[in-house]
């Protein structure tokens, strides 16, 4: 309750801040207003931060608070300025981890520092300690994988589901005991043990998840940190934390579901399932050598592109790896100057985080009007002369539609094979993340242009200019 004028002023500030956060999310729903929305969120954050200094409970350590914020700001600002757009997923992951760690540390400090806490607050503390820690270490592992510091997929010794069950079970058990004890030395020790188990759980849960599942994982970790922030709000009785945290939690969960649906896999399967294990890889390799594929020279590919009426570009993670986005845009502009209608088809899970391809193409100055979502463009492939697939694989595989025995059967795909001809830029004949042979590459309408995506696009540009 409001006890004095200072806290009343602070509460009003928090209230305004919460409203600003809501409005800012609303603004983020359109490319035209999104930047303003982000600025509003910054203002909301600044307001909430400033009024906190006037909170009655905050009565000392002002200098340390300012110093901490200054150090954090420096740590956050410079990498954020410098990071390349292709590395955005790992950047988001690491900032997410910092938020999760903050929530977990607050929970621990609150539990150890405050005597006489209510049951509800204890429950919130346990949950935010656990969720925050999992999010922290999980994000660090996700970062390491995306950055290439860890292999894309690590197999844990032993059964993955068993490990997960053991970790979750022990955290639930520890949490219950802490909740029953509610305070005291034993409870404090056990909370720290819970905290450590949760840190380990974050590592062990994310470690076995493969690179192409990262869109789901990052969205989920984002949601987790949001939830941890909301729980911190419960602990401190601070509604702006509850509002902002819940908004993020909801947004992250929603994106997680969208991503999982776009892969036709449940979130549970992504987290705990073994995907594309033994069966899938076995059949793929054997078949690959026998079946014919058609290779095409850059000259021929350029000619068919230049004389096409309608071209659709399908970008995938390979484009990000090769940093080919600028070249692709240059190529598209050359074709557009020749009167070719060029559009981009973006699969929801292309890349390593939701909307990854859109950001890369935006960086290369591709207008967002030229970017089409799967549902919008799928019917148009049949009326398309040439589809240019750049570093995308599983999201174009017709087996997902036609072959019930395929491990990716049921995953919504871009109907690339409906086009009159398909040119695939690819590094090698290796199968995609799922370890599944792509039927598209053996289609008689498909021709393959092997090589690094950036080099291949460069060659195409030269050749189109020469046409």
């Amino acid at each position, binding site marked *: 309750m409001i006890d004095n004028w200072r806290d009343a002023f602070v509460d009003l500030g928090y209230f305004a801040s919460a409203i600003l956060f809501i409005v800012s999310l609303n603004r983020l729903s359109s490319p035209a207003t999104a930047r303003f929305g982000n600025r509003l969120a*910054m203002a909301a954050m600044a307001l909430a931060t400033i009024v906190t200094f006037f909170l009655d409970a905050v009565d000392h*350590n002002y200098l340390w608070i300012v110093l901490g914020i200054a*150090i954090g700001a420096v740590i956050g600002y410079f990498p954020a300025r410098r990071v390349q757009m292709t590395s955005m997923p790992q950047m988001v992951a690491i900032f997410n981890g910092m938020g999760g760690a*903050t929530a977990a540390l607050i929970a621990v400090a609150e539990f150890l520092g405050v005597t006489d806490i209510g049951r509800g607050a204890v429950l919130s503390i346990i949950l935010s300690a656990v969720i925050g820690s999992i999010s922290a270490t999980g994000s660090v592992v996700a970062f390491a994988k995306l950055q290439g510091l860890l292999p894309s997929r690590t197999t844990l010794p032993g059964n993955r589901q068993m490990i997960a069950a053991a970790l979750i079970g022990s955290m639930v058990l520890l949490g219950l005991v802490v909740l029953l004890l509610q305070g005291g030395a034993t409870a404090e020790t056990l909370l720290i043990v819970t905290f450590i188990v949760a840190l380990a759980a974050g590592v062990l849960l994310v470690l076995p998840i493969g690179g192409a599942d990262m869109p789901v994982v990052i969205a989920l970790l984002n949601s987790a*940190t949001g939830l941890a922030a909301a729980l911190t709000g419960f602990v401190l009785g601070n509604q702006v934390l509850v509002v*902002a945290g819940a908004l993020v939690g909801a947004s992250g969960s*929603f994106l997680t579901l969208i991503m999982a649906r776009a892969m036709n896999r449940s979130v549970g399967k992504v987290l705990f399932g073994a995907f594309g294990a033994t069966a899938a890889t076995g059949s793929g390799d054997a078949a690959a050598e026998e079946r014919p594929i058609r290779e095409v020279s850059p000259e021929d590919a350029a000619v068919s592109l230049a004389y096409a009426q309608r071209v659709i570009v399908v970008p995938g993670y390979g484009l990000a790896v090769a940093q080919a986005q600028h070249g692709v845009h240059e190529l598209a502009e050359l074709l557009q100057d020749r009167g070719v209608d060029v559009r981009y088809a973006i699969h*929801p899970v292309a890349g390593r985080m939701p909307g990854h391809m*859109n950001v890369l193409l935006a960086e290369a100055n591709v207008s967002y009007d030229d970017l089409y979502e799967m549902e919008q463009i799928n019917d148009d492939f049949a009326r398309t002369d040439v589809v240019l697939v750049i570093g995308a694989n599983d999201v174009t595989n017709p087996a997902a539609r036609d072959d019930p025995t395929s491990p990716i059967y049921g995953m919504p795909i871009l109907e690339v094979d409906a086009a009159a001809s398909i040119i695939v830029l690819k590094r090698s004949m290796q199968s995609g993340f799922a370890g599944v042979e792509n039927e598209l590459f053996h289609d008689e309408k498909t021709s393959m242009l092997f090589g690094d995506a950036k080099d291949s696009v460069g060659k195409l540009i030269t050749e189109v200019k020469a046409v």
Partner: protein
Amino acid sequence: MNPDFLMGAYVFILAIFLGVVLISRVPATLHTPLMSATNAIHGIVLIGAMIVLGSVESWWLEAIAFIAVILGAGNVVGGFVVTDRMLQMFKQRTPPVRPNAAAEQQR
């Protein structure tokens, strides 16, 4: 039941629903900036860290809270800066400019 806690629960549930409604309107094009913006927004835990650092007494709790403030501030600042950089790039095709207008722009 603690009224503060119950109040928080009300706010939490309403905010979850609001969040889902707001986010479901965001086009796929903006999913990465959205994620990055919400990523910055959950940096609001910074405020929690500030409150703890400003209220606890023992030095080692202060140390924990100080680290929390650093991490929270990093989350906030980094998150907003990358989001802004990304959103700055989202452009519509510039409409064909009339020769006069182009000349004016150059001046």
